[in-house]
């Protein structure tokens, strides 16, 4: 069974500090990481391959350093995974719909894909749009917030999952091929083995650009994008003047209760 796991390389928010604010981190930051949500998607992909055979192709669009994220993925998945780098200067400044268009073309090029897996969102842009839009463009059913894959029926081409809703859970079935976005509950990502890391370091990862994917410049990048973000700034500084309340528990409770009632938050 052909699986695709979508992956994005993101800044590492653990690098944030007094000296490294959000803007600096976006601009250069330190070492970049695999978007944490996407690790759950990849883990799910590897587990599906272990159960049903086939291969999980990791697709990642980004700048050349994205190769590092793909190697991290290959180190986790070993022989069960392949990787393709979607890299082209023409892809830069793509909005979520252009990104989805590029990913959708790449999924078609992988060919005969049964399940596309994505994380809930990317921790940098946090639009949570792209996976849904991939499904919409490919005309595939979409199942979001998946916490459990109950059954994949390869013969019947169906999948049954449990989705987390805001007020409960839903067991739902749909036809394959389908796009899933997954949550952490599906399973902790495995660590890369030493051998996996060594092999991944030497892996030759193909690059697919606009031409390979048959995309014209006016449907991708800044040209094809319908939204832009010309103005990115630091959020207003919250006026958090910390007031430490000291004393015995019952005294502290009285003081804090007065303050919270005065703040009208209770």
């Amino acid at each position: 069974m052909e699986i695709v796991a979508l992956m994005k390389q993101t800044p590492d928010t653990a690098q944030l500090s007094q000296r490294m604010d959000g803007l600096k981190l976006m601009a250069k930051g330190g070492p970049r990481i695999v978007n944490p949500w996407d690790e759950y998607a990849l883990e799910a992909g590897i587990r599906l391959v272990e159960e049903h055979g086939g291969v999980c192709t990791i697709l990642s669009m980004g700048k050349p350093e994205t190769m590092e994220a793909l190697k991290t993925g290959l180190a986790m998945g070993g022989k069960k995974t392949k990787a393709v780098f979607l890299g082209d200067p023409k892809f830069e400044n793509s909005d979520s719909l252009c990104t989805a268009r590029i990913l959708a073309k790449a999924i078609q090029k992988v060919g005969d894909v049964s399940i596309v897996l994505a994380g809930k969102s990317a921790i940098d842009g946090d639009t949570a749009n792209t996976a849904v839009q991939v499904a919409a463009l490919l005309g595939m059913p979409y199942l979001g917030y998946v916490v459990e894959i109950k059954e994949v029926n390869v013969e019947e081409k169906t999948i049954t999952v449990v989705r987390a809703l805001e007020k409960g859970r839903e067991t739902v079935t749909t036809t394959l091929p389908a796009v899933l976005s997954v949550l952490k509950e599906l399973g902790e990502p495995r660590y890369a083995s030493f051998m996996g890391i060594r092999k991944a370091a030497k892996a030759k990862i193909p690059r697919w650009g606009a031409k390979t994917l048959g995309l014209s410049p006016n449907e991708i990048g800044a040209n094809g994008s319908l939204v832009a973000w010309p103005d990115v700034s630091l959020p207003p500084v919250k006026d958090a003047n910390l007031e430490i309340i000291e004393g015995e528990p019952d005294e502290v409770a009285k003081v804090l209760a007065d303050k919270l009632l005065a703040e009208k938050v209770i």
Partner: protein
Amino acid sequence: MKIFSVFDHYEGDVDAISYETVAIARKLADANNGTVVAVIMGHDVSDMAQSAIHHGADSAIVIDDATLKHFRIMAHGEALLKLAQDESPDIILLGANSNGRELAPYVAAKFGVGLASDCVDLEIDNGSLLATRPALAGNVMAKITFKKGTTQMATLRRRVYPALEADTSRSGDISTASAVLSEDDIPTKILGLETAEGEISLNDASIIVSGGRGVAGEEGFAPVKALADVLGGALGASRAAVDANWIPYKYQVGQTGQTVQPDLYIACGISGAIQHLAGMKTSKIIVAINKDPDAPIFQVANYGIVGDLFKYVPALTAEFEKRLK
């Protein structure tokens, strides 16, 4: 200027974000000679139309169909897409709850229009939507501009814009439209639905009381939950507590959990890793209770108690029990 404000509901109850969304739609319309059309998709939902008008819409369009009883992205998406194609609204707004964050990108992709997700502010600038949204876990704010000449879409984050009080003297046209897909056309079937009874969802909560590593075990959540209960709030947790299996994942606040923005967030025994702060630091008032005076959680807190949560949390519960009687 015609603005669609799409309603969402669960098992017959309107999601509060729908009223917040229609309120911001009202603000945009009033400033730009516009009209607000509430769009309600579901089954047996016609009473929601009146309520939408009372909360700020000028009129409502109801798509009432058995296929729309529960949210399914394709069924709802195709219905909204068709309505948008027929009516050409200038702007379509949805609440950024889990359904809205699926429905909006689906329709935007199929309609070929721009979308700004999870916005904290919306304005009209030069006849075009200008959206403000946080990115990078709230560490930057981005202004999103739209290409002109097409419909513009946005989803509104919860609890950033207040709903209007219902005004029952407001009235407006209520019309109907049809669903697009028949049950046979919808590949996705819901086999079972399990509602989490008796819990307040973290997303809806105006008060959240969370426990972290300091609660030291499953039983340690009992006093934390007792405080949440007396305040009528929701229970939350840090990743450390979830990873230790003391509490289920659905309670996790932070980068790989939920982003919340309550009026009051009480962090009990949570050190305040950057990933946790990412999920809660925009809460209006933050109270931190921690033994370690150097814990980073105090950097974002308004009120701090340096001490043993097992002494202070029950004292707070007892005090609020008295006060809130």
